[in-house]
């Protein structure tokens, strides 16, 4: 029995649930799932979102058990995991929608105002009468003023927030530019002048909103996929209520609840063992690969793996607080101490705003000093503000970000934080955790070559009947697909079956009566874990070792050649770390570190002036992930590590780390180039504006020209991937 009621939302007789989907790739899947769900009675809504790989289901409240829906999707050949939508996500969705609405309004206004402006420009050189021009200008004002007031909100609000906090950002010059351009245009129209800048201000808003919308929606998409990944690693625990077993989401477990943990399952909550004995794999928590014994009375921690026996655990903390206290404390401290990175765009704005505003002021006084009228001087000064074009500057960075985040997404890197891209670009030192980061999360059979293929195959098929993690690794390594019939599991010892009248056993050397073979294997592979296999009279013992990620050697070598300083900081035993470090030829390594030691090492590097990227997966890495300048986690990492990391990478390979570093460097270069392009553009446009030659036509041409130039240059940020593969 499974209890998903935690995820169900009730609303006026209708129950609803959101699920993350696995295996959905095309329209066929969408139709199959939706149709399949509607075949259940009382389902009133089933809508798959193919972009975000999610499903929203609604049904008549009380008519269906939510578990039926999950089962139905499993029957259809997909996997679904209910998730709780984070509050941040719905706020972001609302913001994206608001940006799109603003963009629609701004684009409508820009098109219509431009239509009127082109008529005025062509009329000015032919036969327009002053009355007609005034009429067109007033009509433009009628469209542009309300449209700008609405569509400019994202900029005005952000600028206001920045000014209240007594600093500037890019939105301050943008807002000032737009408001002054509109004000000047109304004033000029009132005085029946030839020129008005309504088109410039709405066009500016349109371009900038387009950039912002793309940036925001790209970030939302990666965030949605990251949330799905968390849901896919479904955190369910088996609760014991009376004599009944109930599968319940971890979030619904309270202190005092009894939880059953089978061999091969991850322990979901911190607690105390009240029944059963087993071994615990702590590698995700401490990085240590040797197993620890667990018997009644022993404390166990969430995130660790139950290896061999059935355990009954009494939860001591609610799941949400279920972290090692010390790690939690360190994590919070490290996050607070992370130096506030000031983003490139804000640094550029900090330089840009005072320079441009001073120039405009000087222009005003300069023309006054030359005996020009106050009116003419103000018009020229404001045209300086309009032509200096926060447009190119405002697009210079978001455009690159959209392209680079998209390229990273395709390379299997999901960014958790907006400024991670820029921070990645400045890295010069990369620190790796060993277990689960440089090595794969599952061990490999080290002595597979010594064992004949038929035995391996048979053992692999038998292993499918066991939940022991080593058995699972064996089955995966052999590629076994069809399980043997009638497999019996003896808790804590192993599994057995009978094939062609001969007994088969897989488990501890005692269980399989293979002491002698085990001793031989242990002599060759001293740090390996072993399981034994017996088939009639023949015996085999498999040695399991942590395996490096398949491309670790290439990637580490590549990073070293690219000039990065590399280090390994691990919580595992010295011999195990030394082995990995020497096979990867990394000279700087430390073993047996506590989470606090790891932070100390990283802080020391940062004090020495290095920019540190930390790559780690364990609970023990989470504080150091937060302490580093920027951090990455593999998708197999613990929740806490993923939450602390700036980026998550997918798959068994280490290549995404190198790609992320390369792409971010390239993106940063293109951002800087774009800023220089904006500077060069201003260097040309500014004298023209100061001299008073700028007309609305020139302003419009300059604004679109510079925006297109900057956007086209931004597209080059994706080329790194092509060069890579």
């Amino acid at each position, binding site marked *: 029995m499974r209890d998903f009621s935690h995820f169900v939302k009730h609303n006026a007789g209708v129950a609803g649930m959101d699920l993350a989907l696995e295996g959905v790739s*095309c*329209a066929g899947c*969408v*139709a199959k799932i*939706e*149709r399949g769900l*509607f*075949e259940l009675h009382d*389902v*009133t*809504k*089933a809508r*798959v*979102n*193919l*972009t*975000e790989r999610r499903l929203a289901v609604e049904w008549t409240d009380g008519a269906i058990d939510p578990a039926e829906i999950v089962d139905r999707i499993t029957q259809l050949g997909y996997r679904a995991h209910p998730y709780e939508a984070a509050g941040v996500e719905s706020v972001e969705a609302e913001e994206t*929608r608001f940006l*799109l*609405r603003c963009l*629609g*309004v701004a684009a*409508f206004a820009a*098109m*219509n105002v431009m*239509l009127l402006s082109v008529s005025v420009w062509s009329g000015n050189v032919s036969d327009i009468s002053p009355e*007609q021009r005034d*009429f067109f200008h007033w*009509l433009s004002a009628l*469209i542009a003023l309300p449209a700008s007031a609405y569509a400019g909100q994202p900029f005005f609000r952000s600028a206001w927030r920045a000014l209240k906090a007594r600093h500037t950002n890019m939105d301050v010059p943008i807002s000032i530019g737009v408001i002054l351009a509109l004000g000047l245009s109304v004033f000029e129209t009132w005085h029946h002048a030839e020129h008005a800048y309504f088109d410039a201000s709405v066009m500016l808003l349109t371009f900038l909103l387009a950039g912002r919308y793309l940036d925001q929606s790209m970030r939302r998409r990666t965030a949605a996929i990251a949330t799905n990944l968390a849901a896919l690693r479904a955190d369910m625990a088996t609760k014991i209520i009376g004599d009944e077993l109930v599968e319940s989401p971890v979030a619904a477990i309270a202190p005092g609840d009894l939880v059953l943990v089978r061999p091969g399952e991850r322990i979901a909550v911190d607690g105390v063992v009240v029944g059963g004995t087993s071994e615990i794999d702590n590698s995700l928590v401490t990085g240590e690969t040797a197993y620890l014994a667990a018997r009644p009375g022993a404390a166990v921690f969430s995130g660790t793996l139950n290896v061999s026996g059935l355990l009954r655990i009494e939860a001591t903390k609610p799941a949400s607080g279920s972290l090692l206290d010390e790690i939690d404390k360190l994590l919070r401290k490290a996050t607070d101490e992370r130096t506030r990175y000031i983003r490139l765009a804000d640094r550029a704005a900090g330089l840009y705003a005072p320079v441009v505003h001073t120039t405009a002021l000087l222009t005003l006084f300069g023309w006054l000093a030359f005996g020009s009228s106050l009116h003419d001087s103000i018009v020229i000064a404001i045209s300086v503000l309009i032509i200096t074009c926060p447009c190119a500057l405002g697009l210079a960075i978001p455009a690159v970000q959209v392209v680079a985040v998209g390229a990273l997404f395709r390379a299997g890197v999901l960014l958790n934080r907006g400024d991670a891209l820029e921070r990645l670009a400045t890295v010069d030192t990369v620190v790796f955790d060993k277990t689960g980061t440089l090595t794969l999360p599952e061990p490999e059979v080290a002595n597979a070559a010594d064992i004949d293929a038929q035995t391996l195959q048979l053992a692999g098929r038998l292993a499918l009947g066991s939940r022991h993690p080593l058995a699972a690794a064996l089955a995966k390594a052999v590629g076994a697909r069809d399980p043997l019939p009638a497999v019996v599991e003896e808790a804590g010892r192993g599994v057995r079956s009978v094939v062609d009248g001969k007994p088969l056993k897989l488990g501890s050397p005692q269980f399989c009566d293979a002491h002698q073979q085990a001793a031989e294997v242990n002599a060759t592979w001293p740090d390996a874990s072993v399981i034994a296999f017996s088939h009639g009279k023949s015996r085999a013992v498999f040695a399991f070792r942590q395996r490096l990620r398949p491309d670790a050697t290439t990637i580490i070598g590549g990073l070293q050649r690219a000039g990065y300083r590399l280090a390994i900081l691990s919580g595992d035993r010295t011999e195990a770390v030394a082995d990995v470090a020497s096979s990867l030829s990394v000279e700087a390594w430390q073993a047996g570190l506590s989470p606090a030691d790891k932070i100390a090492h990283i802080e020391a590097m940062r004090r020495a002036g290095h920019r540190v990227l930390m790559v780690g997966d364990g609970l023990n890495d989470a504080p150091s992930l937060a302490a580093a300048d920027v951090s990455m986690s593999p998708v197999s990492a613990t929740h806490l590590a993923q939450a602390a990391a700036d980026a998550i990478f997918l798959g068994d390979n280490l290549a995404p780390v190198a790609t992320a570093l390369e792409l971010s460097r390239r993106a940063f270069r293109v951002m800087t180039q774009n800023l220089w392009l904006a500077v060069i553009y201003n260097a040309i446009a500014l004298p023209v504006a100061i001299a008073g030659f700028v007309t609305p036509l020139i302003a419009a041409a300059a604004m679109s020209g510079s925006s297109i130039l900057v956007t086209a240059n931004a597209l080059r940020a994706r080329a790194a991937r092509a060069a890579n593969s």
Partner: protein
Amino acid sequence: MEVLIYLVPLALVLGLLGLAAFLWTLNSNQYDDLDGAAWRAISDDEIGPGRRPNSPEDTLRSGAQ
């Protein structure tokens, strides 16, 4: 130039109609799943509650073909 009296309001109204249509598509969640929408457009029949493949209505329909 009297033609402006009709044409200008007409242009504005057409523009506003476009804007209204856009806001309507936005409010009815049509930009939430752009990948899915591309596929749904070419899917043959509507999927909805109460439309089970083995319902009498379907049998009738396939019989008529």
